[in-house]
């Protein structure tokens, strides 16, 4: 009995000892949280100022990431910074990233993100304010021109952290690697064979859809658009057209966000969209994501694609798809009487982990891969498209590459000035837009007597979701 008691005491002491040693080992002494960046802030900029460091970067599987990975050895040679990276498909990428950021371990130092994710990450303190580096002459290569980014694109990554406030002001939370605006892509061969005019208005688009029903036999259909029950359905063609009808998602009333999805403009636009789906959409539209829409367009199953610029672009190089070389682009069709083009923005960007312990090295990486030189290479040789820098887009080499895609440059030029994020920043973005997609599906399925009824119900749901958001 006595023996067992002394064993218990011994084990308890041992456990306490191990735990306290572990805690001592795990806790970071004050002062060690200082970033290497602060220590390295010396006179004058130099690419090898963080030589010997190792940084970790999390990439989403994308041509932008693959192009960067090809150039990492050159980056390491020039800066002396070793880079470890992980590459994860989008389906699982944000789960992995959110868990990593949530742990605040400083790992990864850099990560790819979209602008909408920043509305969750920045208020939580996961992302570093990049202005602190941009405003420090010792940290910026003299040839790095931040004003060269299209204003609407880089502005999409600035936000003052106040729900309801439009993007474009406040700290810069990421730098753009590339972007997507939303345009109408069409199959030139089909349009030529059927002697059809390319639509410039939504009414013309609907009329062309009528003409293109089963244009190539059973299984073919006029217009590929996304329809899956998630936020991805709302942000490309739908939100672009929504803003072109003059509709907005939220307004601020008495310090609260109030959904405007049942406004007359929103309902009129959604009625048009539902008509398009019924007349021209894929038979299994409600399961369509980026992949199905793009693949059907490339395979010649769909005659048109209303989606991100690069979705069709990736189908156009020789060997990429059945209809490669036949694809062409125009600006998004507008409602009758409208001339100003708006397009919703998606930008793959790179942000820095606020908890990173290698901020100088991370900043050098970020600067290197958002520089004009690199971005030009990424278009001409790296299979990327839609550069966020004006000088890169306007360079002759890039123009030569893009000119092989009929109408791409014209559509780009017409759309870029009006390309920005058309949504109102708020932390429940993914929930509200997923509800939006679900309502759209329900309306198409005939679960509501009218579009108005569906949108009225959606407004109520969205108001409930954002009820806890305090807007100013």
């Amino acid at each position, binding site marked *: 009995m006595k023996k067992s008691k002394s064993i218990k005491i011994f084990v308890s002491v041992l456990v306490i000892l191990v735990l306290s040693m572990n805690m001592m080992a795990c806790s970071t002494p004050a002062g060690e949280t200082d970033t290497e960046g602060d220590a390295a802030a010396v006179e004058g900029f130099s690419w090898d100022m963080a030589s010997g460091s190792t940084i970790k970067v999390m990439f989403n599987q994308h041509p932008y990431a693959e192009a960067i990975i090809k150039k990492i050895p050159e980056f390491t040679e020039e800066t002396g910074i070793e880079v470890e990276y992980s590459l994860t498909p989008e389906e699982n990428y944000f789960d*992995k990233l959110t868990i990593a950021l949530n742990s605040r371990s400083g790992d990864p130092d850099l990560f790819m993100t979209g602008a909408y994710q920043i509305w969750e990450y920045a208020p939580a303190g996961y992302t570093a304010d990049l202005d602190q580096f941009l405003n420090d002459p010792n940290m910026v290569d003299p040839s790095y021109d931040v004003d060269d980014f299209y204003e609407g694109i880089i502005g999409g990554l600035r936000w003052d952290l106040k729900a309801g406030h439009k993007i474009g002001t406040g700290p810069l939370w990421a730098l753009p690697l590339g972007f997507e605006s939303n345009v109408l892509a069409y199959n030139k061969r089909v349009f030529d064979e059927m002697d059809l005019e390319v639509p410039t208005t939504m009414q013309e688009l609907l009329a062309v859809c009528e003409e293109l029903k089963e244009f190539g036999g059973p299984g073919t259909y006029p217009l590929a658009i996304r329809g899956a029950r998630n936020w991805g359905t709302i942000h490309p063609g739908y939100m672009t057209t929504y803003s072109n009808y003059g509709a907005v998602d939220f307004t601020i009333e008495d310090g609260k966000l109030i959904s405007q999805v049942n406004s007359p403009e929103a309902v009129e636009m959604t009625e048009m969209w539902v008509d398009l789906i019924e007349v021209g959409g894929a038979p299994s539209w409600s399961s369509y994501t980026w992949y199905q829409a793009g693949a059907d367009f490339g395979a010649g199953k769909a005659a048109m694609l209303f989606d991100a610029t690069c979705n069709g672009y*990736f189908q156009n190089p020789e060997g990429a798809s*059945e209809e*490669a070389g036949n694809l062409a682009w125009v600006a998004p069709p507008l409602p009758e009487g409208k001339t100003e083009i708006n397009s919703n923005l998606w930008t793959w960007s790179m942000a820095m982990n606020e908890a990173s312990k290698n901020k100088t090295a991370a900043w050098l990486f970020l600067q290197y891969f958002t520089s004009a030189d690199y971005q030009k290479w990424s278009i001409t040789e790296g299979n990327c498209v839609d550069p966020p820098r004006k000088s890169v887009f306007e360079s002759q080499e890039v123009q030569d590459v893009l000119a092989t895609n009929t109408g791409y440059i014209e559509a780009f030029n017409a759309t870029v000035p009006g390309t920005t994020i058309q949504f109102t920043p708020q932390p429940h973005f993914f929930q509200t837009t997923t509800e939006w997609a679900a309502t759209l599906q329900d309306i198409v399925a005939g679960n509501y007597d009218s579009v108005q009824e569906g949108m009225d119900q959606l407004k109520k749901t969205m108001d409930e979701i954002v009820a806890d958001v305090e807007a100013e």
Partner: protein
Amino acid sequence: MMKNRLMDLLKNVSAYTVICLYSIFAIFPLIWLVIISFKSDTQMYNTTFIFTPTLDNYKIVLFEGADYIQAFINNIIVSGGAVLLSLLVGVPAAYAFARYNFAKKEDLAFTILSFKFAPEILVILPLFMIYQKIGLYDTYFGLIWVYQLITLPLLIWVLRGYFEEISVEVEQAANLDGYPWYSVFWKILVPLIKPGLVASSLLAFIFAWNSFTFPLLLSGFQIETVTVAALRYIGSDTVHYGQMAVAAAVAALPEVVLALIIQKHLVRGLSFGAVKG
């Protein structure tokens, strides 16, 4: 007599027809996997059975960039390591649960079983933070350790049933014959539980091999397993279904080969311990 024969024949024919139909239903996804592994991206969406076969997908996955092969080797290391560690710990544990009576025995056995209850995604954040702190993140041993949540409960619970089946007198007889305890264990008990050992090890290996959430979230920079690497072929530009099919076919190979080798133990092994006389 004649009528009976006719009835038997009819029974046989209908039974075989059902089996054939079920076989086609069960095997078709695999056949489809093999078919699309020979299709190019351009033929993926507009052809079904008639197309120009290509070996490009195999070339890309297996030879261009060593990533997938490396992931395959990683998978063998972590899944094999996880099963070995589980055997090392699980066999004595199962024996103890079957033979000895100690305080809170059933509670402990239930706790081990409960490792399987929690969805992986729910426990991943604390695991991630602990792994980062103690340096197990993105290491072989880290994955082998966390895979114990998958493999250990299975092994212990199956083998416990086996040990309970063997009467204590067998061990006592061997003891009387002068065998030390470890010889009794190796020479008497292990051969008797072999079918269960083989079957549960194989199942544990398959579960570990197919694990996705743990290797996705607890590794990735240095170590990548096939389940995670196979997703590489879903690019943001397009889904390379042909390459994915090759990756899936290659990933399934070890499981199929192992299952064929130990087929005779498999069904017996899993059903034997289940019914007590």
